[in-house]
């Protein structure tokens, strides 16, 4: 009976047997079988799952398996939230344990996290209230990207920190603090964008700082380092492994 089936029939796939997406949003992994738990193509039910996660304000991890016409499955796991890597938890917690390429937990509130993409926070000159649905800025989106120097003090065996500069997608000059997570001392290839390493990039538009300098705003603080013309001695160390990008 069509009337008893789960909503969203317009897309061709739907949950059946009285199953609802809400029933599956318990944080556990579920295996859904075609013609038992859902009807229609697996690929279509995937997008419905994504839509359901957005409607429920949850994150979701999914994988489909199609062994044959009779054996088609969707594995699905809803999480408390969906974040880009580097995005703070909803509770405001800024420490997360990543247990899996796509799954982690907030160290503050324990909420489960589905990771998707890379996060770039808004700075004071950006739009207020960063949206969790906003497209994260990836290094591949910058023009004239140049890695200037590695921050040796900030870098650790788990993380490589670099300063870079470039032009953002809106044409503004920015400088970037780029953090590369390391595994066994090596950067991790970006699973989404080939040719790049996984990273979190924090961008800062240069223009306000230049203007602030012109207006003498920075002069009121004695602890602000004065800009000096670079000398050859300030150049990045030869042989340092400049990131791809």
């Amino acid at each position, binding site marked *: 009976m069509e009337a008893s089936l789960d909503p969203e029939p317009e897309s061709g796939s739907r949950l059946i047997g009285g199953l609802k997406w809400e029933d599956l949003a318990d944080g556990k992994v579920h295996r859904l079988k075609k013609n038992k738990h859902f009807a229609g193509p697996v690929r279509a039910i995937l997008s419905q799952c994504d839509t359901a996660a957005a409607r429920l304000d949850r994150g979701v991890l999914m*994988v489909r398996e199609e062994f044959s016409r009779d054996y088609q499955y969707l*594995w699905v796991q809803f999480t408390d939230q969906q974040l880009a890597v580097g995005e703070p938890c909803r509770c405001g917690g800024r420490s997360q344990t990543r247990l899996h*390429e796509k799954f982690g937990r907030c160290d503050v509130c324990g909420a489960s996290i589905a990771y998707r993409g890379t996060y770039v926070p808004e700075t004071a000159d950006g739009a207020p209230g960063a949206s969790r649905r906003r497209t994260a800025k990836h290094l591949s989106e910058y023009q004239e990207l140049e890695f200037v120097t590695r921050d040796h003090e900030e870098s650790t065996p788990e993380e490589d920190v670099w300063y870079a500069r470039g032009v953002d997608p809106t044409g503004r000059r920015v400088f970037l603090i780029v953090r590369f997570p390391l595994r*066994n001392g090596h950067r991790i290839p970006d*699973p989404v964008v080939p040719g790049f390493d996984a990273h979190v990039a924090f961008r800062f538009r240069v223009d306000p700082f230049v203007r602030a300098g012109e207006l003498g705003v920075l002069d009121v603080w004695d602890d602000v380092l004065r800009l000096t013309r670079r000398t050859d001695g300030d150049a990045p160390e030869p042989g340092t492994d400049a990131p791809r990008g």
Partner: protein
Amino acid sequence: MTTSVHEPQVPPTAAAPPVDVHWGSDSLGFAIGDLWRQRSLLPRVGIRVMIKGLAGTMLGPFWIVAAPIVSLVGFGFLFGSIAKPPSHGVPYLIFMLAGALGWSAFERVSFWGTRSFDVYRRIIRNVNVPSLMVPIAGSVIAAVEVAMTLVILLGTLLVYWVIDGHLYLRFSPALLLAPVGLVLSVLVGWSVAFWTGSLNARARDVRLVFRWVLLIWLYVTPVLYPLSSLPEAIAALARFNPVVAPVEMVKEGFLNIGIVELDRLAVTVGFILFVGGTGAWFCTRKAPGFIRSRMGLDDDEEDF
């Protein structure tokens, strides 16, 4: 009203420190709790290997029945007629099948457990399956195979009952030793699989080496011949073999021909507690990192 430039302004919010996203793993206690919480997932994960294996065949479930019959009965007749090992007064085929039942509970569980992080790779890379569940999930297909061995043993007992007029199966309270032996065998298998499965997630060499280890292990276990027939050097080694006691318990339970000794049983229990405990810890702490270290290197399956 004009605003003086000297009037206090609300300062912009200071830039928040970057979010610290660090790799980690669950504690063993949490992992065990998570395993229990998601226990209903276990058969669904486990049966996946069988579904995938049968999906491309024409005869389908026939192979679940045929494969062990051909290998066990064929091997039993062949080895029994060529080597003619002693069998404590029962037909060799029955003797061998009883031993094989106890052995297979260990061997199949450890075999599938060792391969588990490979065969479930597609799932564990995309959803967060509890780490401890992965080697254990391999036991589902092992359980089917062990059940087939049991069916073959019972069928053979029935055939010999009809042919010889003698039922070799013993009905007594001691029959309970058989399921206890099977459970111990499974636990030994899990103990091994926590280690080998995790290490195989790092390097597949483990799986290749483990095949040979299992073959050697079989020869120091009283499956093909009785414990009393083992050469002295192998018998000494067998004293530290944690699978001997479970196999003997199965044989004693079904046929009253096993040798159940407390010191051997202590070896088995000690092995489960120590190797199994440390293995569970190792699997929880290290396996996720090992999986990540092989990300994208060898997965020819399509991800999205």
